[in-house]
Structure formats: structure tokens, C-alpha cells
């Protein structure tokens, strides 16, 4: 099966010009997302996963600036489009986003139904009555009980799980090609998280959409995604299929991360020594080198190239230069 490329990010650099200095938030990120897949972007606070998503929607705002790179969506470079073009043709239509805190992402003074109807009327040229009918259908589709009642209510009357469903309904109304979900379940309880994630999965396969899921929780990725990219301090350190990353992580940071997660198979946690660097003064060379157990002189001076270690499994690490060796570096414990 040949996979169709939907979105390609090429060598993306983003800086934030703050009073403390220049925060080098993205350090040449490369990423490919194919049609119909559920792609997870994982990393800890400040690794640049949300900045990557905002760059795609052209939402990097002052003091942030996209310095360099290309974001190719359906063959067109989004960074070469004007702000108006992105607003009129891409954002909210081709690419939509759901946020971490649904209650604050919704407009508090418009009732839920009208909020969803608004985009239908504006983007799909529906009449008010058609839109109202469609809203109820959409709410039913996201498993909201008593959709008529919820449509009349306001966002503050909803629980977190319900509000997230309203957000999802709103995003679906646009029938986007790409849905960016930025920590969609972080603010929810586990039982509600499971409901929302399985809903998202069902809808995606039904509507044949593509999802870019941003999360700090590798377990969520393991349960829902097809492929995953691991980010660290503005670098994409490892990309591969979920199975490959979880069962056969190669980059020292990915290994460290997996060993630090309390999971179904782990009773002792192994910490990653040191702490996340300040991106005003990021370490030279590989940004992970001060915390890495396998550090060599080369790591301190040069940025590692992205190397392929197995089919569809890329790692940015000098350990794999000269081909994949396997052996010791393949262990996770």
C-alpha cells in the first residue's frame, strides 16, 4: 500500500524573542504525516510539540517567529500563504484543532448549539434551520445524551468530558482533512479519557480523517496511535511505528522516558539524570548530550543526522551512524 503524504514539515526553526533572550524552541524539525493515520507527538514540557502544531496552523504569535522551513500540506507550502488565505481556506476547514481545556476554548456567552451552527453557516453555506438540524446530528454522533438539551445549554453547564465532545462535534462539522488534538484528554479523568479517546478513534475511521495527537503521555499514544514522534528540547529525536518505539526504542532519550513511566510492566522507575535544558542557551550539538549515558565527543559539537535503523524507524543519534548494529543499544531495561 502506498501511503499518501498529507502534511510534511521540513526543517522547521522557530524562535521566541523574549526579554531573557532568544528561546530556540524548534531546532530544525522534520515530520511526515500520511493520510488516514493517527500520529502521536510525544514529549515533556517545553519540548516544542505544541509549537509545532501552532506553526502548522500559522498560529505562532509574537514574540515567536518561524525562522525557516516549509510546511507542505496537500502539496502547498502553508508558510508561503498569506494570513488571509490560511484563515479563509485552511484553518477551521482543512485543518482544525481541539484544545486541552475545552471549557475555556468554547465561547462562554454563546450556547453550545449556536456555537457549532456558526461554523456550519459560515463555511458550508447552510441555512439556519439546516444548521440546527445538523448540530443535533453531530451531537448525537459524539454520543451526547439529550442533544437537544445540551444544544440549548452554555459551556459552563457542561462537564469536562461533555465539553470536549462538543469541541469534537464542532471540529467534525468542518469535515477537516487533518485534526490536531492538543492534549485532548489531559484535563479529564481516566474513565472519561477512555470514552473520549475511543470516540475520537471511531469517528476518525468513519470520516477517514487524519489526526495529529499531541500528548505528554506515552501510554495514551500506545493505546491510540499508529505512528509516533518523540520530541526533546526542540528536536525530533525518534520517529517510528508505535510498536517499534515502545518495544524497541533506540534513542537514549526515548529509552529513558520509557523507563521513567509508571506502566503496567514496571515496578521501579529509572530517572533520567540532569534536567531539561533552558532553550535560551541550549546545549551544543545534540541537545540531549548532557544527560546521555552514551555521550561521545562528536555529540557535543555536531547535531546528529537522522538515520534509519529499521523500516520506517528514524533516529537522530550518532550511535547509529554506520548502520544499525543492534546489540546492547536495543535494550530497554
Amino acid at each position, binding site marked *: 500500500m502506498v501511503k499518501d503524504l498529507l502534511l510534511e514539515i521540513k526543517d522547521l526553526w522557530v524562535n521566541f524573542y523574549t526579554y531573557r533572550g532568544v528561546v530556540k524552541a524548534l531546532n530544525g524539525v522534520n515530520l511526515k504525516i500520511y493520510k488516514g493515520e493517527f500520529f502521536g507527538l510525544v514529549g*515533556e*514540557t517545553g519540548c516544542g510539540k505544541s509549537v509545532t502544531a501552532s506553526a502548522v496552523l500559522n498560529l505562532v504569535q509574537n514574540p515567536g517567529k518561524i525562522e525557516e522551513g516549509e510546511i507542505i500540506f496537500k502539496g502547498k507550502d502553508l508558510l508561503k500563504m498569506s494570513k488571509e488565505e490560511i484563515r479563509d481556506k485552511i484553518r477551521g476547514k482543512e485543518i482544525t484543532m481541539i484544545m486541552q481545556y475545552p471549557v475555556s476554548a468554547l465561547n462562554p456567552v454563546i450556547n453550545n448549539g449556536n456555537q457549532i451552527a456558526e461554523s456550519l453557516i459560515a463555511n458550508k453555506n447552510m441555512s439556519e434551520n439546516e444548521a440546527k438540524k445538523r448540530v443535533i446530528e453531530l451531537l448525537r454522533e459524539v454520543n451526547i445524551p439529550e442533544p437537544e438539551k445540551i444544544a440549548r445549554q452554555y459551556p459552563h453547564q457542561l*462537564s469536562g*468530558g*461533555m465539553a470536549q465532545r462538543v469541541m469534537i462535534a464542532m471540529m467534525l462539522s468542518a469535515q477537516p482533512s487533518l485534526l490536531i488534538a492538543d492534549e485532548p484528554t489531559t484535563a479529564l*479523568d*481516566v*474513565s*472519561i*479519557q*477512555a*470514552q473520549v*479517546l*475511543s470516540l475520537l478513534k471511531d469517528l476518525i475511521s468513519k470520516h477517514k480523517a487524519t489526526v495529529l495527537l499531541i500528548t*505528554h*503521555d*506515552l*501510554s*495514551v499514544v*500506545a*493505546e491510540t496511535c499508529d505512528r509516533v514522534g518523540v520530541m526533546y528540547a526542540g528536536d525530533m529525536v525518534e520517529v517510528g511505528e508505535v510498536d517499534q518505539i*515502545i*518495544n524497541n526504542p533506540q534513542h537514549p532519550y526515548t529509552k*529513558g*522516558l*520509557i*523507563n*521513567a*513511566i*509508571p*506502566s*503496567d*510492566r*514496571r*515496578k*521501579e*522507575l*529509572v*530517572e*533520567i539524570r540532569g*534536567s*531539561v535544558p533552558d532553550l535560551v542557551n541550549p546545549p551544543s550539538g545534540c541537545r540531549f548530550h548532557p544527560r546521555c549515558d552514551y555521550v561521545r565527543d562528536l555529540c557535543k559539537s555536531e547535531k546528529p543526522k537522522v538515520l534509519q535503523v529499521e523500516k520506517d524507524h528514524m533516529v537522530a543519534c550518532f550511535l547509529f551512524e554506520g548502520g544499525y548494529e543492534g546489540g546492547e543499544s536495543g535494550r530497554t531495561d
Partner: protein
Amino acid sequence: MEELIKLREIKKYFPWKRHQYVKAVDGVSLQINKRDIFGLVGESGSGKTTLGRIMLHLIDSTSGDIFYKGEDITKIKRLEKSLRRNMQIVFQDPYSSLHPRKKIKDIVGSGLRTHHLVKNEGELITKVEEFLNLVGMGEEHLYRYPHELSGGQRQRVAIARAFILNPEFVVLDEPTSSLDVSVQAEILNLLKRLREELNLTYIFITHNLYLARIITEKIAIMYLGKIAEYGETENIFENPLHPYTKALFSVVPKLYPKKIIKRIILKGEIPSPINPPLGCRFHTRCSEKIGEICEKVFPSLKEIEDKHFVYCHLYD
């Protein structure tokens, strides 16, 4: 094993509107022994934090008794200082639990002053330095302010502040949930080490089952102000009995998901604690409900295997 805290039928109702109450904790009985690491696990609104604070006498319970070393402390209006010294807490969010305008030495040392444990500033500094070292921080932090520290460092300061008074037990209220996973691992390993070195009892409050498995020895699973099940952590993981515990295990995202097992996805949302369901609190979402008895009668406590207790009609 020596008993340290015993709770008997603890209830905490917060006033809501006229004649309406939020039943945050609704009849909890528990015993915590010396040197236990006891986990309280539940989703939001289960009452785990309220229960932790009641144990510390930070809030008064509406009814019920708390025995601390055999003495009923609910009868005392204000805890004696000596008793207070023995109980400490580490809060969830280290960004709001440290005074932003105080130096680290004052934050960590304020308990020493309150309890007159040091005679002068010099002694205070020595003692604070000792405890900062214990939590893995150097003396260069003594004169800094909280905003100069990272989240992990702040939580270390909060831990040093709690432990400097040499308490008997410490309530850890989601101490790592606002931290990144790599930092979380550090803090948990630190807490484990300190337990061994200082001979402490922990109440560990968390919503994360796998986290509870890493640190606790016993856990109680809470749902809507009541305990569903409690026992040794390993027993509960090997053999969960209550349908809520089973459902919880099945919905927690796993790093190594088993594709074959059908997940029990809980129906609906957690009911409101203002009008919790009658009978078993969980019957509205339970997939193993047996019938009317679940809706009407709250199940009694049953010991199924050694020290593994459950409140469920399935085991009548």
C-alpha cells in the same frame, strides 16, 4: 504491626445550598499502621484529598472519629503543637504551595521557628542545609526565591519543609502530578529513599493506579466519597474484586496494551456528590449489577482473601 491512625465512619459534608450538601466523604473507616505507605486512589470527586486533609485535622470532619495512636483527635478543637509537628503534608502544586516572597531557607525553616527547635539563625541555616542536602539540593539554594527554581526543585523544597520537623506521618497529595515524567521518577525515588532513612508513614494520594503500584504497599480505591475496595497493593493488582476497580484497570492507558482484551468502558459520568446514588454508589455505572439490592442497600464490608476487603454485593 502498630496502629497509627484509625478512622471510624468519617463523614465530611460541605454546605452547598439550603439543606443541600456536597458529600465529599461519606462514611469511611480505615486503619493505617506505622511504616505503611498507604495509597488513596480515585478519580476527581472521590474524596481522596478531603480524606487526607481530615487525617491531618486540617479540616474538621462532620462526624466520625479519628484515633491517632489511640487518642481521639476529633474532640480537640485545636491540635496541640506537639501533635501538629508529627503530621505534615506535601501539596500537589509546588507553584502555589511555596510563598513567592520568602527565601528557601525561610520556607523550609519556618516550622523550626514555630516549634522553637532552633535557638538562632545559625542553627536554622545548618539544619535547613542538612535537609536540602537530604532532598538532593545544594546550599546555593538557601537564599533563592521559589521563582528561581524548576518544578522538580520546588517539590524538593516542599518535601524538605515537610520532613524537617521529623514528622511521624506525611500526607503526599498527588506530589508528582504537575511534574514531567522524568522528574516524577526522581521525586518518587527520593520519597522512597527518605521513607527508609527516616522511618516514616506515608499517605499517598493519587489518581494514577500504576504510580500507586510503584510506591505504595496498601491501597484503598475510592469512589464518590466511599471506599470500594482496599488491601495490599499487589493483591489488588493481581485480583481486583470491585467492578469499579476492574473498570479502572481496564481504562487506564497502558504502555503495552493487550489488543485482545475487551475494555470495560464505564458508561456515563461520575454522579454528583450532592445527590449520590442510593445503595452502592457505583450501581449507576456498574456492568455487574445484580439487581435491586445494589440500588437500595449499601454493601457491607467483606474480607475476600487475607487482608483484602471489598464493599460489593457480588460477594454476599
